[in-house]
């Protein structure tokens, strides 16, 4: 009998039904889909218009000022790069740990990673005073003999994020190929041609499967240090400066932990929505949320530990400038945001996740939404209070965001949702073949390997699949 916690989909036995359920969202174009896309699209368009307004008029239309030279844009940058750590953890780490319950969620997670990275990587360009020269960050030979400054953490950002982006994209795309092939085989008409191109001639041969597995294994091992390095480097954007409460050695692990924390929360939220609107109740059973919820709880405790450790040392050390920033968030004008953040990141999630009865799908959803909001606030509270109170009190100043920054921020959330919705429309959001592997392993764990390999080829022979399943017929357009 299958181990229920490890193989959540063990109750599924009908491959054809699986195919149908997971390809249906790809097949159907409902009014609701167009409505959602239109709505999100408008918000995203508003964001782009705001950015265009900024490009035309100058970066001054944003709220940044002296001395708070970084505000919403860098908050968004760090936040979205943080969200992108969802994929790595789930896919890579769980894959290496051979945790079966990852199977239905790997693609959801990896998609978040790629899109969050894309969105996050826009912000270094958005926040530039002269973005039309952003290409100077690319090391290319030029007649002036100028190269970028490799000592700058922003350059490390450039390399790390691009590496992570390339890695994650690979990590995402490779395992979609068999599912594209399945879609190619199941659909007809334009979809058949479309997915035919995307499946890159996948035939499901033994050799192809072996290559895919090896590639996934290698990527899983490589992507973990890359992901850790990305948010470490992002944290060093702050820690490498002598700004009070930035210049802290704890920043690297603190940020990585925070990133994973926010990533898991984002993943849970995404999964809850997918489950509801794509009717994937069977495929995303409560045990997934339960396990993710436990992970989220762990990260929440870890987050709390880091925050407490940092604040205690600042308070104890009593260094003038640092302590004045500390009080700014504990007792000063930022205290409301601070306590809201603590509530969102710990106060609300802790009971919802620690108490088994409350650790339901709704429970984890509420906790995750709180965490996403709380983590955004956390980035804001790291960046802005420190800059507003540096060493010379005469030069202190308060930051106030403008509509441009708010619009763009809201548009990124809409953009993430939009990208996700579009992705889920064109690509099966649950990795079908991996799911089936799980199903097989659960039900026939003693079958010889040949037979398992054999069974995995069921997506190239539709007739055979049909015969096996009892003839469901092909999907129509």
């Amino acid at each position, binding site marked *: 009998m299958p181990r229920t916690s490890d193989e959540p989909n063990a109750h599924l036995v009908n491959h054809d039904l699986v195919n149908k359920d997971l390809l249906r969202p790809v097949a159907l174009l409902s009014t609701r889909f167009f409505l959602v896309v239109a709505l999100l699209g408008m918000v995203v368009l508003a964001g782009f218009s705001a950015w265009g307004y900024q490009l035309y008029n100058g970066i001054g239309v944003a709220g940044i000022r002296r*001395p708070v030279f970084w505000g919403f844009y860098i908050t968004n940058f760090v936040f979205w790069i943080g969200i992108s750590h969802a994929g790595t953890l789930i896919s890579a780490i769980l894959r290496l740990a051979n945790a079966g319950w990852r199977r239905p969620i790997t693609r959801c997670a990896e998609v978040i990673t790629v899109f969050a990275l894309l969105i996050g990587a826009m912000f270094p360009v958005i926040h530039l005073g002269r973005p039309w020269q952003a290409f100077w960050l690319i090391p290319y030979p030029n007649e002036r003999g100028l190269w970028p400054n490799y000592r700058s953490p922003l350059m490390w950002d450039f390399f790390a994020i691009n590496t992570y982006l390339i890695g994650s994209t690979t990590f995402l795309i490779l395992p979609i190929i068999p599912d594209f092939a399945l879609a190619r085989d199941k659909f007809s008409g334009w979809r058949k041609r479309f997915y035919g191109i995307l499946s890159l001639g996948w035939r499901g041969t033994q050799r192809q499967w072996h290559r895919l597995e090896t590639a996934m294994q290698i990527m899983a091992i490589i992507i973990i240090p890359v992901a850790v390095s990305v948010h470490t480097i992002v944290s060093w954007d702050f820690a490498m400066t002598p700004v009070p409460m930035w210049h802290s050695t704890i920043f690297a692990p603190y940020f990585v932990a925070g990133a994973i924390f926010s990533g898991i929360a984002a993943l849970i939220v995404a999964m809850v929505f997918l489950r509801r609107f794509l009717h994937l109740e069977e495929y995303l059973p409560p045990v997934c949320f339960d396990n993710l919820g436990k992970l989220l709880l762990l990260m929440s405790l870890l987050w709390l530990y880091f925050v407490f450790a940092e604040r205690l040392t600042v308070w104890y050390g009593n260094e003038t400038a640092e302590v004045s920033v500390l009080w700014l968030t504990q007792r000063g004008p930022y205290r409301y945001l601070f306590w809201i953040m603590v509530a969102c990141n710990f106060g609300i999630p802790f009971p919802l996740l620690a108490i088994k009865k409350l650790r339901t799908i709704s429970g984890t959803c509420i906790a995750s939404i709180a965490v996403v909001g709380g983590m955004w606030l956390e980035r804001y509270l790291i960046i802005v209070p420190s800059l507003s109170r540096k060493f*010379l*009190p005469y030069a202190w100043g308060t930051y106030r965001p403008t509509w441009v920054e708010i619009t763009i921020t809201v548009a990124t959330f809409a953009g993430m949702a939009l990208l996700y919705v579009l992705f889920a429309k064109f690509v099966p959001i649950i990795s079908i073949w991996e799911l089936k592997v799980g199903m097989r392993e659960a039900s026939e764990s003693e079958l010889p390997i040949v037979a398992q390999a054999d069974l995995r080829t069921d997506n190239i022979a539709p007739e055979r699949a049909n015969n096996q399943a009892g003839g469901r017929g092909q999907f129509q357009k």
Partner: protein
Amino acid sequence: MERRDFLKATVLTGATAALSGCEKPAQKLVRFIPEEDLVPGVATWKPSVCTLCSAGCGLMVRILPGEAEVVRGGKLGTIQMGLAKKLEGNPNHPVNQGRLCARGQAGLQITYHPDRVNGPLRRSGPRGSGNFLATTWEEALSEVVSKLGEIRSKNRPRSLRVLSGRLRGQHGELVRKFLKAFGAPPAMVFDPLDEPVLRQANLLSFGQASIPSFDLARTNYLICFGADFLGTWNSPVAQSAGYGEMRQGRPGSRGGFVQVEQRMSQTGGNADEWIAARPGTEGVLALGMAHVMLKEQLRPHVQDNATRLIAGWSEGLPDYAPSPVEEKTGIPGKRIERLAREITAHVPAVAMIGGLPLAHTNGLFSALAVNALNTLLGSVGTPGGMFFAPRPPMQESEDLTEDGNFVRDLLGAKLDGTDVLLLHNSNPVFATPAAWKVRNSLAQIPFIVSFGSFVDETSELADLILPDHSPLESWLDDVPESGTNRAVVSLAPPAMQPLHNTLAMPDALLTIAHQLGGDLGKALPWESFQDMLQDSMAPLRTAGGMHPPPSPEAFWTQVQEQGGWWGDEPKQFGRLASPHGRAAVKFTEPQFDGEESSFPLHFQPYVSQAFLDGSLAHLPWMQELPDSLSTIMWGTGVEINPKTAQRLGIEQDDLVEVRSQHGSLMAPALLSPGIAFDVVAMAMGQGHDNFSRYASGRGANPVTILAPVQVAETGSLAWAATRVRVSKVGKARPALFSGGLFERPSELQSR
């Protein structure tokens, strides 16, 4: 449409209208031939004179060639010309010795100001509406000539009045000669920055109605009563230079500095000890110190006129023992004793008084008290003390004190019967209390001509505007009254060609004089102001300063090159004239307008670091300069003590109303620790209705709500004598440059 926009529009259309009479309507910019020898990229330095305050510092102007749009011969075009790029102090000038203050640096923006009147204008709507149309110099000047000819032929020369800022040097001489030859009364001078009470005190004590100078570089101890001498008072650059030497210019010896005021000024922030005596009791404090010095025989007993003017001096000042002084000033008797001992232990020491203390109704008493203190300290005309700058041996038709006084004439109804008013360098509509109704009085004069470069609250009443060149475009001369121990006549040719269709005011006067002819023409025989200057300098050729004396031509060249003439350094300070005062004075309580119960706070407007009396509010650099203490930019605020504010329910940045018996204004509250509990203060200079795009409609003008109280002996406005009440009316957002207001200074680490 806003008034100033309309003005701009009418000037523009006016210009085109004037030109279209003879040229094609379609304007193509003509390229004029350069009028000077210019080497591209090479800078030349030319001397000039700073005219922004009474100090009269010498300038060096850096000129670089550039292209500018100008009007030549009635045509608009472009020309390569030398453009002033930077002002520096003239290193050889005895007053400022190569240094220059913030305002002097900003003077550069006057020449290039976008709202400068760039050609003669004639009023084209109701008076004060701000509607003007361009006209030509011929028409404008001939109209003035005909108006003056008219009143002369009607045998009413006394109906010509001139209202002017301070008149010094040949500039002033020209105006005086003109008026005298015409038969008109003396010019009415209105200079809010002048110190008539101090002049009167010095006349009584020392026989010279002059502003004093101070040898700070050799002082060991300075006690200053209310004068912002490091900021805006008297000769700030010279005094700052002396102050720097006093502090750190003599190895092993550092002079101490005590400031007495109720509101910490920029100057007061530098004091070693800051004393907040009650308003109007500064003289009492000075005499309290003198009492101790006399009683404990800390100084040789002196009997001089200055001390004889103080009632009770020969009896040892019994009314000014520490106990009654403590009662009046609020300063503990022990502290006064300590001050007296300290100052005498550190002679040479000097006392200084100016600004707010002299703006009380008993200001003259305070000034006389300080004069007596200085006499007792032996610091009058001695190294490290006070002295009067020597006057250059030039032909002067009249003494400075003979000039008329605008306030006196205004309040004495002497303006009635004026037919023609010539305005120059003065803005009394702005800088006087509303209670005096200056605008109404001036508006009734049938014909008003302004020589100003800008439209402001006073010149907007004019019928004709004959715009003067900017200072850098003019022949300038000045005789500084203080800040130097040598006789100085500053003189400089124009540093730049004129940018606009303007005419130097002295040359305009000469033209008018010649056209009028008769006695006037004979009294002013010079073709141009340049000639008049050259003639006036002639006696100085052999008066010292240049050894051996050069030939007349060489002298004139040298004077122009170095920026003026200055005499030899005297071996000692000049002897004083015989004093004029006879009657001994005693302390009288300062009078305040407004009952204390309804108006509990003293209102102290002060001369602003950025705008002085408001005459510099149109300069954008000055608007954006953060005030040294409040750090406010582009606005004004009401400075109020945090405890007082708390009591009144006022928080930082709240919009408050300040109400006196004669008016009210609204401004943001600025909580300031450096101000007494019962005092509120406001910088002068903002609150212009009409003074260029940068100053109009901005801030509030504290002078408008002042009570029309005068200092009895001089008739000048007692601008510290108003009481007000303050209440919150809303919220404001002043542009403060500083973030932290009451923070501790960053701790500097020793190596």
